[in-house]
C-alpha cells in the first residue's frame, strides 16, 4: 500500500523532474521570491540576535538592513517581465514589486515611530521587531499569491504576529483587550476563509486562480465559497459589516502597532482582494459590492463624526477609506477591468500608507510624550507650540479628505473614475456626497490644531522628537509628491 503511494508520488515527481532543480534555483524564482527570502532571512537573524549574547546590539541594524535588501529585491521586480513561479501559485511583476515596497515602507514608518515608544516593555523590543518583520513577510506573501492556500499561509504569517503585537503592552488592559478581540475575530475570519476555499475547491477542483475553469464559476458551491472568502477578507480590510472590531482594536493596541495595522494590513488584503475578486466573483456581484462600499463609507464617515479620540477617529476614517477602495473592486467587474482596478487601488493605498502612516505616527509620538490618549481636546493649540507637527498633521488630514495637490486626491480621483467608467455613476455620486461628510471631521482636527486655544490641563508637549519629526516630514513629502508629480509612479504601473 505504501509502495502504491510512493508509486503515485513518483509519477508526479516524474512530471516535475524535468526541471525541479532548475526551477528552484532559477534566476526567475530567485527574483520572484527575493523580497520574501530576504525578509525570512532577516527574521532568522533577528532570532539569532536574541540568542547570541552581544548580538542584540546589532538588532536595529539587522532590521534596517533586511528592509533595505528586501526593498532592493522588490525594486528589481519592478519593470521586469512577469514571473509566475511554483506552478502558477505565486507571481512577481511590477505591481507586486510596488506592493512589496509599500509594505516595507509601512513597516519602516511604524517601526521608526515606535522607537522610544515602549517603556515597560522595552526589554521585549527584540520580539517586537521580530514580530513586525514576520508580519511584513506575511504581507509580501499575500500580495504575490495567486492561490488560495498560499495566500492563507501569508495571512496567518501576518495575523498571528499582529495578535501578539496588539496585546504587546501586557500591563495595559486596553491593549490586552485589543489583542484578545482581534484574535478571536481573526481566528473566526481565518476559519471562514478556510471553509470558503474548501467550497471553492469542491466546486472547481483547484485552488490556483490560473487553473480555475471559468465555466465552473457560476455554481452554488463556488459562489458560497467566494462569498465566505470575501467575508473574511472584508474582515481584514474592515468593510461593513465586519468593521466593528476596528475602533476598539486600533484604540487599544499600542500606537506603533496601530500605525502598522492601519496601513500594512489593509494594503496587503487589498493587494490580494483585487485578483481574488477578478478570479472568483461573478459579474453580478458588481452592484452588491458597490452597495456594500457605500454602506461602509457611510458607516465609517458617520461613525467618525462623533469621535473625540484621535485613534478612534482615524479608525473610522479607515473604515470609510476601505469603502472607497471597495468601489474599485466593484468597478473591476465592469469595463475598466482588473488591471486598471489594481493600479487605482495600488495608487490609493500608496497615498494612504504615507498619509495614515504619518497621521497615526504623529499620534504615536504625542501619546508617548504626554502619556495620555490623544484627543481632539488634547491637540488644541498645537500649531502655536509645534508648527511643523501641526502642519504635517493638517496636511495628512487634507490628504485623507481628498483635497487636490495631495496623493489622497489623486487616489480618490482614480477610484471614482473607475466607478464612472463602469457605469456606477449614481454610486459615484453618493460616494462623493459621503466624502463631504468625511471632510467635516477632518476639518475638525485642523480646527483644533490651528483655530482653538490650548486647553487648560491638557498642555501640548513643547519638544518634538527629532526622529518622529523627520519621519513625519518624509511622509508629508511623499504625500505631496504623489499628488503633485505622480508621473514617475503612474508611468511605472503601465
Amino acid at each position, binding site marked *: 500500500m505504501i509502495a502504491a503511494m510512493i508509486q503515485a508520488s513518483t509519477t508526479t515527481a516524474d512530471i516535475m523532474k524535468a526541471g525541479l532543480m532548475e526551477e528552484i534555483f532559477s534566476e526567475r524564482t530567485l527574483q520572484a521570491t527575493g523580497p520574501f527570502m530576504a525578509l525570512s532571512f532577516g527574521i532568522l537573524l533577528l532570532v539569532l540576535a536574541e540568542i547570541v549574547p552581544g548580538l542584540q546590539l546589532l538588532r536595529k541594524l539587522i532590521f534596517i538592513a533586511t528592509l533595505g535588501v528586501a526593498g532592493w529585491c522588490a525594486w528589481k521586480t519592478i519593470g521586469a517581465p512577469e514571473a509566475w513561479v511554483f506552478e502558477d501559485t505565486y507571481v512577481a511583476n511590477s505591481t507586486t514589486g510596488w506592493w512589496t515596497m509599500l509594505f516595507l515602507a509601512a513597516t519602516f514608518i511604524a517601526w521608526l515611530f515606535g522607537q522610544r515608544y515602549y517603556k515597560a516593555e522595552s526589554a521585549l523590543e527584540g520580539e517586537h521587531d521580530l514580530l513586525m518583520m514576520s508580519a511584513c513577510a506575511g504581507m509580501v506573501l499575500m500580495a504575490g499569491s495567486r492561490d488560495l492556500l498560499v495566500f492563507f499561509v501569508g495571512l496567518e504569517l501576518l495575523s498571528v504576529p499582529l495578535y501578539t503585537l496588539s496585546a504587546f503592552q501586557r500591563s495595559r488592559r486596553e491593549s490586552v483587550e485589543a489583542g484578545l478581540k482581534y484574535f478571536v475575530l481573526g481566528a473566526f475570519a481565518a476559519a471562514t476563509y478556510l471553509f470558503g476555499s474548501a467550497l471553492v475547491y469542491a466546486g472547481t477542483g483547484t485552488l490556483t486562480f490560473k487553473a480555475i475553469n471559468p465555466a465552473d464559476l457560476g455554481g452554488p458551491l463556488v459562489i458560497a465559497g467566494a462569498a465566505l472568502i470575501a467575508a473574511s477578507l472584508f474582515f481584514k480590510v474592515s468593510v461593513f459589516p465586519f468593521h466593528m472590531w476596528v475602533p476598539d482594536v486600533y484604540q487599544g493596541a499600542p500606537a506603533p502597532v496601530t500605525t502598522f495595522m492601519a496601513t500594512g494590513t489593509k494594503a496587503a488584503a487589498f493587494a490580494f482582494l483585487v485578483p481574488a475578486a477578478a478570479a472568483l466573483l461573478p459579474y453580478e456581484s458588481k452592484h452588491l459590492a458597490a452597495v456594500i462600499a457605500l454602506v461602509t463609507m457611510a458607516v465609517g464617515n458617520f461613525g467618525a463624526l462623533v469621535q473625540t479620540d484621535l485613534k478612534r477617529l482615524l479608525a473610522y476614517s479607515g473604515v470609510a477609506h476601505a469603502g472607497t477602495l471597495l468601489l474599485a473592486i466593484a468597478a473591476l467587474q465592469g469595463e475598466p477591468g482588473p488591471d486598471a482596478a489594481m493600479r487605482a487601488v495600488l495608487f490609493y493605498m500608496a497615498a494612504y500608507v504615507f498619509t495614515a502612516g504619518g497621521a497615526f505616527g504623529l499620534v504615536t509620538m504625542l501619546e508617548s510624550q504626554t502619556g495620555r490618549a490623544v484627543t481632539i481636546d488634547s491637540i488644541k493649540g498645537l500649531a502655536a507650540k509645534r508648527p511643523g507637527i501641526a502642519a504635517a498633521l493638517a496636511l495628512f488630514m487634507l490628504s485623507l479628505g481628498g483635497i487636490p*495637490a495631495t496623493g489622497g486626491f489623486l487616489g480618490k480621483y*482614480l477610484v471614482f*473614475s473607475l466607478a464612472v467608467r463602469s457605469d456606477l455613476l449614481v454610486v459615484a455620486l453618493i460616494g462623493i456626497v459621503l466624502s463631504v461628510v468625511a471632510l467635516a471631521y477632518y*476639518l475638525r482636527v485642523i480646527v483644533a490644531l490651528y483655530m482653538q486655544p490650548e486647553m487648560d490641563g491638557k498642555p501640548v508637549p513643547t519638544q518634538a522628537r527629532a526622529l518622529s519629526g523627520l519621519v513625519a516630514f518624509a511622509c508629508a513629502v511623499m504625500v505631496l509628491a504623489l499628488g503633485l508629480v505622480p508621473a514617475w509612479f503612474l*508611468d511605472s504601473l503601465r
Partner: protein
Amino acid sequence: MNFLSLTVLIFLPLVGALLVAATPSKAVGLQRGITLLTMFATGVIGIMLCLDFNGASAAAQHVEQRPWFTLPGGIPVAYKLGLDGLSVLMVALTALLGPIVMLSTWGHIHERVKEFMVWLLVMQTGMLGVFLSLDLVLFYTFWEVSLVPLYFILGIWGGSNRLYATIKFFLYTVFGSLVMLIAVIWLMYRFGTTDIVQLTNVAANLPGDVQLWLFAAFALAFSIKVPLMPFHTWLADAHTEAPTSGSVILAGVLLKMGTYGLLRFCIAMFPAAAIEAAPLMMALGAIGIVYGAFLAMAQTDIKRLVACSSVSHLGYVVLGLFAMTAAGLRGGLLQMVNHGLSTGMLFLLIGMIYERRHTRALDQYGGIASVMPVYALFFVIAVLSSVGLPGLNGFVGEYLVLLGTYERAPILAAIAVTGVIFGAVYLLMATRKLLFGPLVLQANKTLTDLRAREVVLMLPIVVLMVWMGVAPNTFLARTEGSLVDLTQRLDRARAVRTAELIRENETRPTVADAEESQNR
C-alpha cells in the same frame, strides 16, 4: 525662462510664501516686507502680461504646456496655462488686488502674522491658477487648493463665530466641487483628453440631454461659489466673520471664480445646455438681485449689509452672462470686475472704521464725515460706484447687463431694474447713517482720519473706477476676440437647436398617424 511667463506669475507668490515660512516667527517686519514685495512683483507681472495680451484674437495666449502625468487608460494630463479673453480681466483684477489686500493687513493682522502672510500668498497662487489653467485636472486642483487658505484665514483671524462660518464655507464649496469632479471624470473618459480648449470644441457636439447633466454638475459647483440664490447662506456668515483682507479677497476674487467657471465651462463648453437652462439661471439671477437687496435693507451690521449686496450684485453678473447676447456677456464680464473693485473697496473701508471703533453696528455711528472727511470721500465714491452712478464703473456694467437681458427677457430686465433702485436705497441709507447726521457718540468724535497707507492702497481702485466708467472700451477690447468667438459658438448651437425643433415638429407623429399605425 522668460520673466513674463504665466508660470512665473502663478508660482511667484508660492515662492514668496516659502520664503516667509523660512523666516523666524518674530521677524514680523521682514515677513510683511517679503509679502508686499512678492505681491507687488506679482501684480506688475500680471498686469504687464494682460497689457501684452492681444484682445482681437480668440486664441489663448502666453500658452505654456508640459506633460504632467498620464492617467491609467492612457489619458495625458497636461500642465497647460494660457490667457484668453475670458480670463484676462480676472487675472488683472487678481494681480491688482494682491498688493492692495496686503497693504490693508497692517491695520488688522497683529497675531500670527507669519502664518497669515503665507496663506495670503498661497491664496494668490491658487486664484491665479484657477483663472489661467487650460487643463481640467489642473483647474480642479487649483480650484480646491484655493479653498484651503481662505479656510485658515477665516478660521484663525475671523470673528467670534468664525469656526462655524469657516466649516460651513468649506463644506458648501467642497460639496459642489465634488459633484463637478464626477462630471470632470466623465468628460475625461468620454473624450480621452483633459485639455479645456479641445473639450470646448468637442463637448458642444454632445447630445442635448447629456450636456444638460454635465451642465448641471458644473453649474452646481459654480452656483454655490457665486453664490446664486438658494446657495447663498454661507456667504453672509463667511463675510461677517472674515477679517477685512479675507472679505476683500472673498468678494474681490473668490466669488468671481464661480462666475468665471459659469462662463468658461457652463456656457462655453455646453452651449446647447446653457441655452436650455438660461431661463432658469437668469431667473435665479434676477431673484438674487431683488432678494439680496431686501436682505441688505434689513441689516444693521454694515459688513453684513455689504455681504448681502454682494448677492445682489452677482445676480447681475449671472443675469448678464446667461442672457448670452453680445451686450449681456460684455456687461457680465465687466460687472465681475466692477463688483471686485467696488465691493472690495467697501470692505476695505469698513475694515478701516472697524479697526478704529471695533464695532460694525450702524447705530453706533453717524456724523463721521465731519471728523473723517477723507474717509467719507472714499466711502461715497465706493457707494456711488456700487449703485451704478453714470461716469463710474458700475453704471457701464449694469447698463450692458440690463440691455442684454432686455433682448431676451424683458420682464426679468424690469425686475432687475428694481434691484438698481433698491441698491441705491440701502447703500445710500447706510451711507447716511454712517457718515452724516449728528455726531452724537463721544467715541466717534475722537476718530482719526485715514493714514497715508490707507489712502495709497485705495487710490488705484478709484482711478480704475473712473477709468472704467469713462472709457470701458480699454477693458472690453481685450475680451473682444473671445466673446465674438463665444457668441458664434452660441449662435451655432442655437441654429442646431432650432433645426432639431423643426425636424421634431415635422416628424412628430400626429394623432391620426398613431391611430393608423395602431389599426395596422
